[in-house]
């Protein structure tokens, strides 16, 4: 029984992220947890529990977006602990947990496809879509629409500071989709031209709002003002139980990298990574559970947790 070290967990986590481009942080975290269960053998459930907690902690501290990691891990924990634990031996229990874990993971991997398929009818021929930063789900939805021979235009925001929008732009062009890269500040200007707004989400809050790359909130406000529908494409494991009241109320660990938090700099002068878009600005959420209105999100969460 090797003692699990934080560093090792982080290495595994980062390795997964590096090697599989297509995998989101949340899925990578869940894979990491599964690996932890597999590799770090423990004797009791409690120890397993501790291990997993440590692992989650470690992952939250390695400068990756925390939102998805935390919600995915929480769901995973809940999932595996619902296994019937009244079996005799711990090994059996562990096996059951592993199996459930793998099922859960498989379900999650299918989720993206389901979401993309649901979003397909909403991308009509000749429509112009505005998207923000890079989201794999949105990319997959658009790719599927392009393969279904729909003609549409996409405007992608550059999304500083990491310019992830450029990567999205490149990937869209590679699929033959007519994509234009625009400045973040040009969102208001371009809004009257587009028909729909499609964004991904790093987390979905209990209120039905989303936590996403910084700039989404402004996009939502502009879209509401100009009466454009905002569609959020997200997998269901990103549902989390936090309920931010405003931007300030978002936990700091979501907004800033862990290294920044640890370095003790004045947070007021730091640029946040994510912002919170309240449910009033969102028209529909496309999830693998179906097409939900923002008010249905809390319904789902209540059903699960209460």
């Amino acid at each position, binding site marked *: 029984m090797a003692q699990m070290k934080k560093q090792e967990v982080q290495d595994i986590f980062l390795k997964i992220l590096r090697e599989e481009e297509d995998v989101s942080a949340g899925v990578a975290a869940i894979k990491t947890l599964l690996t932890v269960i597999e590799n770090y053998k423990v004797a009791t459930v409690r120890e397993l529990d501790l291990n997993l907690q440590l692992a989650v902690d470690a992952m939250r501290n390695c400068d990756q977006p925390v939102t998805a990691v935390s919600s995915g891990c929480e769901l995973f924990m809940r999932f595996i602990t619902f296994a019937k634990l009244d079996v005799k031996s711990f090994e059996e229990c562990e096996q059951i947990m592993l*199996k459930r874990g793998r099922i859960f993971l498989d379900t999650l991997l299918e989720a993206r496809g389901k979401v993309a398929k649901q979003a397909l009818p909403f991308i009509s021929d000749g429509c112009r879509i505005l998207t923000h930063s890079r989201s794999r789900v949105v990319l997959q939805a658009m790719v599927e629409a392009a393969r279904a021979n729909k003609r549409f235009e996409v405007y992608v925001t550059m999304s500083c500071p990491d310019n992830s929008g450029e990567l999205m732009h490149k990937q869209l062009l590679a699929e033959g989709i007519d994509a234009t890269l625009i400045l973040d500040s040009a969102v208001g200007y371009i809004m009257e031209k587009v028909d729909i707004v499609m964004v991904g989400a790093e987390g979905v809050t209990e209120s039905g709002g989303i936590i996403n790359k910084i700039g989404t909130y402004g996009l939502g406000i502009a879209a509401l003002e100009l009466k454009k529908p905002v569609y959020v494409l997200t997998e269901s494991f990103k549902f989390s139980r936090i309920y931010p009241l405003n931007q300030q109320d978002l936990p700091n660990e979501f907004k800033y990298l862990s290294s920044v938090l640890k370095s003790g700099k004045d947070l007021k002068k730091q640029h946040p990574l994510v912002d919170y878009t309240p449910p009033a600005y969102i028209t*529909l959420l496309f999830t693998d*559970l179906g097409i939900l209105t923002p008010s*249905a999100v809390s319904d789902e969460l209540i*059903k699960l947790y209460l």
Partner: protein
Amino acid sequence: MAPSESPPRELDSKHEDKIVKFVSDIRNGKIEGSNNIALTTLSLLEQIITECENATALELSGVVREVGRRLCRALPQELVAANMARRVLRAIRDEHRLLCEQSGGATSGTGTGTEGSGDSLQRLVLAAHGGRRTTLGAALPHLREPLRDHIAEVRAEIESCTASISSQARAHVHAAELILTHGASSLTERFLKAARRHTHYRLLLGEGPRVQESHAMAARLSAAGVPVTLINDASIAAVMSRVNKVVIGVRAVLAGGALLARAGTHGLTIAAKHYSVPVIALCPLYKLSPLHACDRYALSALDCPRPSMLYECGESSRVHVECPRYDVVPPDHVTLFLTNLGGSSPSYIYRLLSELYDPKDHQL
């Protein structure tokens, strides 16, 4: 493979005949009004189920699904017929599950305490090892009886829809109020007459696209003792500031809380929103449809342009006349839905939908 993607199956010829007759009745106008169409569809499906040889859930649901598909293709505008097919499919699933649980005990994989029938986080998390769904394959010979009972319940519900909605009139219409309604709708008429029995109010009737029907409704309501003022559509925005409530009848309620209603209703609700006038939509549950308003062309139909411009007008030869039959009203324009189960806000429609239909049946 999802049920909706299953290949079309052959139906018995007698079933086909029934379907053809039903479709032609609706097209010829022998069956009119959503209520009648819903009841007739239900009877049709009941007949088909009764005559079906193999009474397994799988077989029955396949047949019903095929009938539903045919109806969708033949009558794309009659969302109520498709809704009834979905209701029956849901009934089959429910009955099957109940029977399975009774007979099989713990073989059902969904576990206890899961709400709803569709995917949910709960189901996701609580899914057992192995099959996550009960299949409908088990042959249960006694499915027909409980199914017929279920369908009878649905029928009773549909028949009592109008009465239950009208009985809510008292709670929503108060003395000396000015109510605005648009176009002719038999349900709205019943509602307003029921309200008249309890209280004195005044009614403004916007003509809408079907002028003769609106005028007839105005005549009937005024004969019933309601002071009716008939106005043109052009004056709706002018009088909206004085209106206390807007009550409208709908053609269908779409997923998300959007409405499908007669042309001109969207303009009315835009004005109501501007003046912050509450909009009450009367919709019996059989009008709830799981379709989305994403494709405006699929849901819209064009109407005869005669009311807009007579053919005899000289201009009619040189210009194109746009005349849609329906309008899609977004959910944020509607304040309250009055269904036969009570009132609900547009944001709760998803829940009503999930109770009525199985998500796998949204796409027949």
